[in-house]
């Protein structure tokens, strides 16, 4: 039977999944909501005669599965966002009467690594460094205060001034239910507040207390595993340049480059450590897909495991751009699909080499001067240059006006450049940003802003501890 993949996502990732399917010789089916009808992720497959189904929402598992059955799909690719890290969805996909292949890790793995506290506990047990703090939710004030005191002390001993801790909802995420505290007297009132908030919002009043780490780089390790226990890494990435809402704007692979800038610590050793720690945890849980291990690296060269993303990420391609499997550049989405269908890797870590630096820019309709406020409107003109060192991933058509749907983040395109070294990549990055044109109008008739100027401004800061 020919495998057929339901692409349960939108935008550029849907397009990249379709492309990967074509290269692997797999059939595929697209879904879309009415607001996305103009998007290339609908127009391209439609032009190729692939089935496209209108659904009520990308978040409606029932519609997605009903379409999968109707279209006789054998597998579902969730992309990123939406259902990609929803273990219940993954479980339902494989447990239903008509089971399908979920292109991602086993649902148990998604569940176990999806819970930040659980990751922290697992990591702690494996002697992987985590941010000092509680590994179980705290429910009572006395204990919270005692813990906070310990953590203040710990920072004082290390000369971290001024000491500061984070009190956050155990069940929270995305910056919700989190507060910084810099004196012991504030612990109780804040604890109470967060607890009430967590209770109201997440239905669980567990609270976590951690040291507040400032002045760090956000690093990632890209892993790939399969059901046979094969496990490799594709190096590291640096995603420190983020909006104030902690959303990534520029990503670079590899994570540090001592040839480009100097570090107050031994950068190569840190990268090696976080890779080996990540592999250790992945092996421990039997990780069987692509995944990203997120780390914080502080100015003194300490690394702490933050969380694991059990999905393909937006920035996966920069890792692919600097990796060579037996000399050839891999496609991580293809690899992800292959392992989901039960294939062996066909290579080992020794077969993977690294070459050059790759930078990804996220082109977004937003007002970076006003708190990265997302903008909507119509794109009238969209142009980017054509170079062999450049790849642009976008669902925005270049041949007709495009209305930005308001239900989603206004991501327009990803620009991925590659250079033999970081200096070259940086130069090419500037060139790309200079030559790219996005013009449009907001609903009020004003010119549509994008973040291109912001990206230019931030590009010189990459990989550096300033």
């Amino acid at each position: 039977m020919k495998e057929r993949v339901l692409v349960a996502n939108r935008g550029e990732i849907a397009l990249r999944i379709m492309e990967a399917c074509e290269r692997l010789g797999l059939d595929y089916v697209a879904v879309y909501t009415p607001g996305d009808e103009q998007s290339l992720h609908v127009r391209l497959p439609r032009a190729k005669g692939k089935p496209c189904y209108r659904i009520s929402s990308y978040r409606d598992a029932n519609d997605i599965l009903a379409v999968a059955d109707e279209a006789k799909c054998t597998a579902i690719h969730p992309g990123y966002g939406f259902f990609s890290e929803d273990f219940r969805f993954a479980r339902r996909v494989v447990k239903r009467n008509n089971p399908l292949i979920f292109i991602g890790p086993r649902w148990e793995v998604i569940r176990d690594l999806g819970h930040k506290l659980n990751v922290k506990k697992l990591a702690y047990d494996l002697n992987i460094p985590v941010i000092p703090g509680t590994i179980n939710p705290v429910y009572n004030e006395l204990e919270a205060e005692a813990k906070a005191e310990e953590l203040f002390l710990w920072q004082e001993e290390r000369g971290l001034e001024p000491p500061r801790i984070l009190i956050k909802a155990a069940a929270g995420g995305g910056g919700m239910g989190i507060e910084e505290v810099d004196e012991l007297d504030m612990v109780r009132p804040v604890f109470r507040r967060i607890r009430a908030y967590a209770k109201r919002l997440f239905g669980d009043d567990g609270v976590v207390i951690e040291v507040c780490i400032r002045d760090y780089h956000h690093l990632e390790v890209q892993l790939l595993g399969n059901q046979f226990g094969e496990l490799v890494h594709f190096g590291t990435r640096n995603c420190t340049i983020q909006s104030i809402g902690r959303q990534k704007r520029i990503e670079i692979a590899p994570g540090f480059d001592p040839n480009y800038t100097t570090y107050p610590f031994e950068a190569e050793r840190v990268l090696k450590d976080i890779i080996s720690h990540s592999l250790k945890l992945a092996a421990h849980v039997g990780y069987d897909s692509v995944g990203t291990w997120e780390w914080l690296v502080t100015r003194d060269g300490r690394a702490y495991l933050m969380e694991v993303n059990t999905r393909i990420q937006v920035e996966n391609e920069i890792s692919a751009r600097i990796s060579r499997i037996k000399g050839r550049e891999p496609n991580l989405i293809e690899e992800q699909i292959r392992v989901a269908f039960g294939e062996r890797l066909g290579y080992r870590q020794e077969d993977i080499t690294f070459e050059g630096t790759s930078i990804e820019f996220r082109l977004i309709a937003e007002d970076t001067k006003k708190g990265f406020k997302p903008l909507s409107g119509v794109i009238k003109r969209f142009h980017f240059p054509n170079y062999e060192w450049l790849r642009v991933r976008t669902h925005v058509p270049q041949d007709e006006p495009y209305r930005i749907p308001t239900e989603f983040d206004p991501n327009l395109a990803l620009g991925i450049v590659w250079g033999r070294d970081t200096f070259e990549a940086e130069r090419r990055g500037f060139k790309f940003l200079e030559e790219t044109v996005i013009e449009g109008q907001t609903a009020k008739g004003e010119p549509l802003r994008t973040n291109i100027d912001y990206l230019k401004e931030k590009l010189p800061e990459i990989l550096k501890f300033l």
Partner: protein
Amino acid sequence: MALDNQKINQLLQSFRANPYRIFVVVTPHTGYLREFLVKEGDEVKGPAGKWLEKPGSPLFVLERERNPKTIRAKASGQVAKINWELQGRFVEAFTPVLEIKHTLTQKEIIAELLRKILHIVTAPEKARYFLSPELAQKIEKAGEGRVVVKPGDELAIMSFMKRETPIVHEGPPMVVFRVFFARGQMVDQGEPLFGLCLEEERPYVEKLIARVKEEWPT
């Protein structure tokens, strides 16, 4: 006043000539359209009862993931243009299934009229809207048509692209005569959110409503 007497008369005339609206009933989601429960020409009822606790007339059965769901009429009227070929087939979300020709009620005529004659605050973006808590509280206490907003007062909160933006009243102090959206409703850009009028216009508007009530008794 946004409209003069003559125009209002024209408006009322148009309601008299065509007191109908067509509601297109679409599938709320994908699934198999198992069965039609109405035929063309049938009269159907929308939700009824003091608390709208009695559901509308059943129209058709849509089954998805072994959950057959009876889709019911949201407005009363006469069934027309049934898309019979959908019977037994898998349908996509938002597929038109049938139409309901709905005779406007007194309340609806008033609402439409008010949209035409009041100072309308429209939705700046297609987004979800929430009444500002203070205003909601005031309206609950005093009733619609009794609360005055001053420039700078917060009218509503727009939830747009995961952010919340306040919508603030501009211009002279005005009476909030109507709120056109339900809590958290998705409103298309340019659609009305609020109908306002000047304090001195209020008696006129109220008189007009009385006139409509007389002409279209419930």
